[in-house]
Structures are given as structure tokens and as C-alpha cells.
């Protein structure tokens, strides 16, 4: 019945499909705002971008939807001419990637072996180029990837797939602000495809660039938190050390000006050793020929390196772009990481930290157990030096009513009430001069 209303629909769908077949590098789909139709194909194709004139979108989608749903209702989907069906489904998902039924039919045909998974990934990427926040598209993408990685693949294919996934999620994140789905997808790829772990350091650097450009986006920062959580899996890569040397040095700079006055004898051996390596690093005493951070002896060095780098990055961003709450939230996460690490160090490595195991603490414990004796752990003392400096700086530099001051004060309050008691923060700083 609907054929009669808009006979050109099939022709337009064929045009779209032909472009997909011809242009393997197609990367974009857009709807062009042309409201008055002429007797001219509404399908446009230039510079690997597919365009569809707006006037036909509604009629086309109505045609596709009714046809597919009628076939589905009559259970004739598998009997329909595959070429007709494939162009209907292609048009359908392009125009409305949020329609689960269409994706499910595609799934069915992938299982039957009629659709090629690599082509599916391409089509899916193009639907994402117009609707970067479509959850259905991402779910389908993960489904395909799961199927593909279930079988052994050549390493070249696999690495190209990973490359493509990272690019697609970055494209989606760039095109739609606060695109939780895109970053979620990226996390999924990093954690579900084992070979993606090789990209860990690349991801660390690229996400830094992205985060510095999008300071208000928590989803991007959350991805960085995800990476930070994975750091302990990458401690054997000692080649990272050199990259963190300078940031570690500036992180340790308070040691030069202040005295950490507490009794060393009380410290655990791990803590003592760590302190010694910090001092060595500052004095440029090279204990091990290649690695200035002496990380082979001390596993914590690299972990501290990552955290220090992040802390300094957030400090810089907070100074550069005042008044963005997402940055402060991220800082809290970093502090929390530091906190559990210093707890680990001060309690000796034999006693594992009970906070970060993923097991939720009982509610009463949640707020009060998070205390740490900063007398005993100089690492935490160091971190507090930085926090103190930052908060002071923010309060002095900006006016009292400004949002930045408000955020800084709120941050101080959070530290006092959640992580540490008030006295520890204020009385531990003694200037040398």
C-alpha cells in the first residue's frame, strides 16, 4: 500500500546502497536541509560524505518502517529477497539508529551468515556519525565485536579493529558533548579486548589532550580515572619511568622547602625505602644506571609517577580554566587514589588496602575510616602540601564570591570531612625559611 504513496523510496534506498558499495572509505552521513524536492536524486555524495535531502526523510522512513514491520508481522523476513531487505535495513538504521528492531533483524542475519561483520561495523560507524549518542548503535557494535573476537583473529586484523574502535569512539565523543556512551564504549574496548592493553600509554597521552580541551566533561575525565585504575597492571613497563621524571620531581618539590618532621623509626621499611628513593631522585643521585626513579626496587615509584602527573595536570587545568566542577571532582578521585596508596605503603605491603577492593564499605565506615595518620606517611603529607597550596592560591587569586573560590572551599571541606581531620592539614606545614 505504501509503495503507491512514495514509489521513489526504493530507488532512493538503492542509490544509498550503491554509494555504500562504491565508497569503502565513506565516513559521514548527514541530512541536508533542503525542504523542497525537485525531480533529482536526494542522495548526495562528496568527499566520502553521504547526504540526504531533508524533504524525503520522513516519507522514506515511513516506507522502510512499514515494509519491515509488515514483513516481520507476517514472518516473511527470511523469505524476502535479500537485496531488497538489506537496503531497507540500511536505510532504516541510517535514518533512525535508535530502532532496536532494525538492529535485531540485522543481528539475526549476521548469525545466519548473510551479513558480513566488518561491513556491519562500517555501517554502524556511519550511523554513529549522525547520531553519536545512540546507545543502540553502541550496543550493536559491542555485540559484533564480541562475536568477532570470540574467534581467533590475525593480529593485523585485530589491531586494525582496535584502532578503528578507538577512532569511532573519539569521533562520537567529539561530536556530542558529554557523550557517556562513547567513553563507555572505549572503556569496554580497553577492558574486553586483551590486545588493546598495548595501547595503554597511547590512550594515556591522547586522553590527556582531549581532557585539556574539554574541561567540563566528566565522561572524558572518567575515562582517565578508568585508566588510572588500570595503572597497576602496567607497572612492569619500566620504560614509562623516564616520561614521569619531571612531573615527579615537581611533585616532590615541597620536600626541598619543608621539613617532614616525624620520627623515622616509626615508619615501615617500605615507607623508609620510598623516602630514600625520593631524596635520591631530588639529589640526582643515580642509583640505577638507566632508571633515575629506581623503580625496579620500588614498585610504587611508577604508580606515584602516574598519580603525580595527573595531580599536576589537574592543578594546571584548574588554574587555566577556573570554575569547572568536573575538574575538582576528578581531583577528588586522584586524591582518593593517593590516599589508598599511602595507606598501603604505611601499613606495609603485606596488609592490603581494604578500601579499593570494590567491596562497598558499611555506611558508618564510609566516612570515618578514611583517616590516615599523616605523621606516619610522608607521601600523604606531600599530597596535602599540594592541596593546601592550590586552595590558598584559588582563594587569593579570585574574588570571594566567584565560583572558583566556592569550589575550592568546598574541596577543602571535603578533604577535612572525608579524608583527614582538620588539625593534620593545618599544623603539618612548617616553612624552612
Amino acid at each position: 500500500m505504501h509503495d503507491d504513496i512514495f514509489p521513489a523510496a526504493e530507488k532512493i534506498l538503492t542509490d544509498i546502497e550503491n554509494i555504500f558499495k562504491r565508497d569503502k572509505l565513506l565516513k559521514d552521513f548527514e541530512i541536508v536541509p533542503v525542504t523542497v524536492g525537485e525531480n533529482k536524486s536526494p542522495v548526495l555524495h562528496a568527499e566520502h560524505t553521504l547526504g540526504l535531502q531533508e524533504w524525503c526523510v520522513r516519507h522514506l522512513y515511513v516506507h522502510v518502517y512499514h515494509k519491515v514491520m509488515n514483513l516481520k508481522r507476517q514472518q516473511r523476513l527470511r523469505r524476502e529477497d535479500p537485496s531488497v531487505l538489506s537496503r531497507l535495513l540500511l536505510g532504516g538504521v541510517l535514518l533512525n539508529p535508535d530502532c532496536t528492531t532494525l538492529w535485531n533483524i540485522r543481528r539475526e542475519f549476521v548469525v545466519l551468515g548473510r551479513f558480513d561483520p566488518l561491513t556491519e561495523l562500517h555501517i554502524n560507524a556511519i550511523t554513529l556519525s549522525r547520531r553519536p549518542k545512540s546507545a543502540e548503535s553502541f550496543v550493536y557494535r559491542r555485540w559484533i565485536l564480541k562475536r568477532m573476537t570470540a574467534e581467533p583473529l590475525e593480529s593485523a586484523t585485530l589491531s586494525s579493529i582496535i584502532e578503528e574502535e578507538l577512532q569511532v569512539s573519539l569521533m562520537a565523543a567529539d561530536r556530542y558533548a558529554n557523550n557517556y556512551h562513547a567513553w563507555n564504549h572505549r572503556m569496554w574496548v580497553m577492558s574486553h579486548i586483551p590486545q588493546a592493553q598495548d595501547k595503554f600509554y597511547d590512550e594515556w597521552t591522547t586522553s590527556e589532550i582531549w581532557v585539556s580541551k574539554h574541561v567540563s566533561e566528566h565522561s572524558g575525565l572518567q575515562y582517565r580515572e578508568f585508566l588510572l585504575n588500570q595503572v597497576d597492571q602496567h607497572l612492569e613497563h619500566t620504560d614509562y619511568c623516564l616520561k614521569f621524571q619531571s612531573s615527579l620531581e615537581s611533585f616532590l618539590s615541597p620536600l626541598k622547602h619543608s621539613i617532614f618532621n616525624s620520627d623515622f623509626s616509626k615508619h615501615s621499611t617500605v615507607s623508609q625505602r620510598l623516602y630514600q628513593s625520593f631524596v635520591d631522585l631530588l639529589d640526582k643521585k643515580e642509583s640505577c644506571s638507566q632508571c633515575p626513579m629506581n623503580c625496579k626496587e620500588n614498585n610504587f615509584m611508577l604508580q606515584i609517577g602516574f598519580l603525580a602527573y595527573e595531580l599536576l595536570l589537574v592543578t594546571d587545568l584548574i588554574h587555566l580554566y577556573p570554575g569547572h566542577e568536573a575538574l575538582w571532582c576528578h581531583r577528588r578521585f586522584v586524591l582518593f587514589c593517593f590516599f589508598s596508596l599511602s595507606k598501603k605503603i604505611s601499613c606495609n605491603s603485606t596488609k592490603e588496602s581494604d578500601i579499593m577492593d570494590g567491596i562497598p564499605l558499611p555506611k558508618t565506615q564510609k566516612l570515618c575510616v578514611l583517616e590516615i595518620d599523616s605523621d606516619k606517611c610522608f607521601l600523604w603529607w606531600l599530597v596535602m602540601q599540594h592541596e593546601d597550596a592550590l586552595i590558598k592560591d584559588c582563594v587569593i587569586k579570585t574574588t570571594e564570591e566567584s565560583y572558583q573560590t566556592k569550589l575550592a572551599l568546598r574541596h577543602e571541606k571535603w578533604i577535612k570531612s572525608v579524608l583527614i581531620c582538620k588539625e593534620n592539614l593545618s599544623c603539618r606545614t612548617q616553612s624552612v625559611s
Partner: protein
Amino acid sequence: MLQSFNCLITLFFFSLQLRRVFMEEEALINKKLPKELLLRIFSWLDVVSLCRCAQVSKSWNILALDGSNWQRIDLFDFQRDVEGPVIENISRRCGGFLRKLSLKGCQSIADGSMKLFAQLCNNVEDLNLDGCKKISDSTCQALSKHCPKLQRLDLRSCIEITDLSLKVLADGCPALTHINIAWCENVTQNGIEALARGCRKLRSFMCMGCARVNDSAITVLAEHCPNLEVVNLSGCVNITDESVLRLAENCHGLHYLCLSGCTMLSDASLIVLAQQCHLLSTLEVAGCSQFTDAGFQALARSCRLLEKMDLEECILITDTTLMHLGMGCPRLEKLSLSHCELITDEGIRHLGMSPCAAENLTVLELDNCPLITDASLDNLVSCHNLQRIDLYDCQLITHTGIRRLRSNLPNILVHAYFAPATPPPAVGSTRQRVCRCCAIL
């Protein structure tokens, strides 16, 4: 025959209304009608009805599933469910009764069940394996060994098939009249030559997309099979004028010829067809870009029975071709001129005035002819039978022109890119009605 159908209808009536009666051991219908007659009635039923009847009672089950009722089976409607064991059961039940079996699109059918089929159903005449991609040469070997009566075989898209199949078919099935090996890309010259030498009764030969087919294969085919009527060589890119010459010389009965995509052909092919094949009714030459007006002029003069012509992308043809077709081919029903960019209103005017247009022309495809204007549509007003006209991308055509054509030919289907008129929103009218109610109250 009419009586039988009446019987059938009554039967259905009974089976619906008197369901209770069947439950009893000696139902009325079984008492009144002898088994032979019941069997006769069943022989008119389709697969679904037979299976339903088989569930009625034990005696009906035996009668309905009797092999004699299952001479012609088309499983296309059950495509997705058909697996190997189904074919094996059908083979066992029908045995020698089976004449015709269609397994179109049954992708899961494999060699094993087809071998059993060939052994049990020796009398099969018409076998359709279109799209059974798992089928390979060993099926054809079994067919050749056990089924000498095979007349029609459709192996379209059975991509595993090679020359070997055609050789064994040539040896074992001399009665073959129709064969379709479209998209079997492994088939070469050797296979086709062997087939032609063995099956001299061939009337229909389809090998779309078999790019390895060449002139010498077609030459042998034409020389050995003079009865050929239907030939489809579309997409056989290596074909030259030589093949068409041989076909035209030997097969005078040719009435369907498809040469689409054979880009090496020239006017010589059309001229030789015009001289030898006067019975030609369908000619498809899409993409044969070397054809010119001269070739079609010769063709139009002598092949007066032409009904369907596909001239898509014959980019050199002009209004002259249309003028000659209009004069020479009064039976023309379907004409495709897509992408013939030199066609103008003048050509369409000749076509519109010709006898074919007024009587027979039903489908006219003019998409991507940029010079066509509304004047062409006005010239087609006299074509009473015109049912569909394609005007995609003819940018000089306007809405008004189409509306004028529609007013003269109300049943015509116009294919153009124009958006359909949006139906008036139904929601608005109901709301209005409520308002009117309110007003009255």
C-alpha cells in the same frame, strides 16, 4: 476439472463444519466416498492442505501422504525450516511419483540428502536448486546417474558447481531442455561445450554472470543445440559479435535474448539478429554502449514481434531509434531507455504517435534522460495502456506536467523523486469535532 474443484470446496466445507463426524471411527464422508475418489480429490490439494488433511484421521493420513499426491512440490514457502532430513523423508515417501521439486532458497540442503533424493526419485523432471549454496558436483553426479528423465534444472547461485557437473549432466541427462547456471562462476568454456554436445534438446540456456564463458563455448552451444529459444548471457563480458552471429545463424527460434553488460558487442550483432531471428520478442542489451541507431533501425525493420526491450545505457542512440521502433514494432509493451542521454521530446513524440503506443505500451522507463521535458508527457497522453513511467532525475519534468498526465491517464504510476502529497492530519479533524460538540452544547 471444474467438478473436482467443486468437490474440493465442498470438502473444505465439510472439514470445517463437521469436525465432530471425523472423530468417529466410521465417518460419513469415508462411508460414502471410496478411497480412490478421496485420493483423486487429494491430488488437487496443495502442500499445506494435504498436511492438514493428514492430521484428520489415520485413514486420511495414509491417503494424504500417499506418494501420488506429491508429484509437484514447491518448498519455497517453508524455506527457513527445510533441512536435509525433510528432503530425505520426501524422497522416501514420494519415490518415483515425484516429478517436480523446488528447493529455491533452501540454503541448508547439502549433497548427502540430494544424493538420496536422486537415488529414490528416478522420475524427477523439474528440479529447482536456486540458491542451495552447499550443493556441489557430487549432487549432479548422482542426478546424472539416477535421473535420466530430468528436463529442467536450475542451479542458479550454486557457487560450488564446476565444469565437472556439466560434463556428467551431459552424459546422464540427454533429455535436458532447460538449464540455468547463473552466477556459477567456476564454469568455463569446457563445461558448456560438453553440455552442448550431450544435451541437444536444450531450449533454454541461462548463464548470467559466468564471466569465463567465451565465444568458442557459445559457438559450440549454437551449433549443437539448434532448438534454443531462450538465451541469457548477461554479464558474460568476453562475448563478442562472433557469438551472436553463431546463435543467430543456428537458432532461428530464438525469442528471448539477453546480452546486458556484454560491452564488446557492436552494431554487427544487431544486424545479424535482424537478418536471422525474426521471432525475437524480448531483447535486453543494457550497457551495450557501442550500439547505434543503424543497428536498431535494421532490427526494427525485421523483428516485428518485439515486445520487451531494455536499452538502458545504450548511450549512442538518438530519436531515430525511437522513430524506427515506433514504426516497426507494433507489439512493443515495455521499453527501457534509462540513461540514453540523447533522447529528446521529438523521439518520445514519434513513440507516442506510433501504433504500439496506443495499443500495447505498458511500461516506459525514461529515468536519467536529461533532455526530456513536460512536452514528452503530453505526447504520451494517447497511450491508454501505459501503467508505469519512470522519470527519475529528468530535471526538466515538473509537477504540473505529471499532474496533467495523471489527469489523462488516471491509473498510471509515475516514478519520480517528488515527495508525495502529505495526507491531511487525522488528529486535527477529531479535535475539531470535539470543539463543534462543545459549541453545540
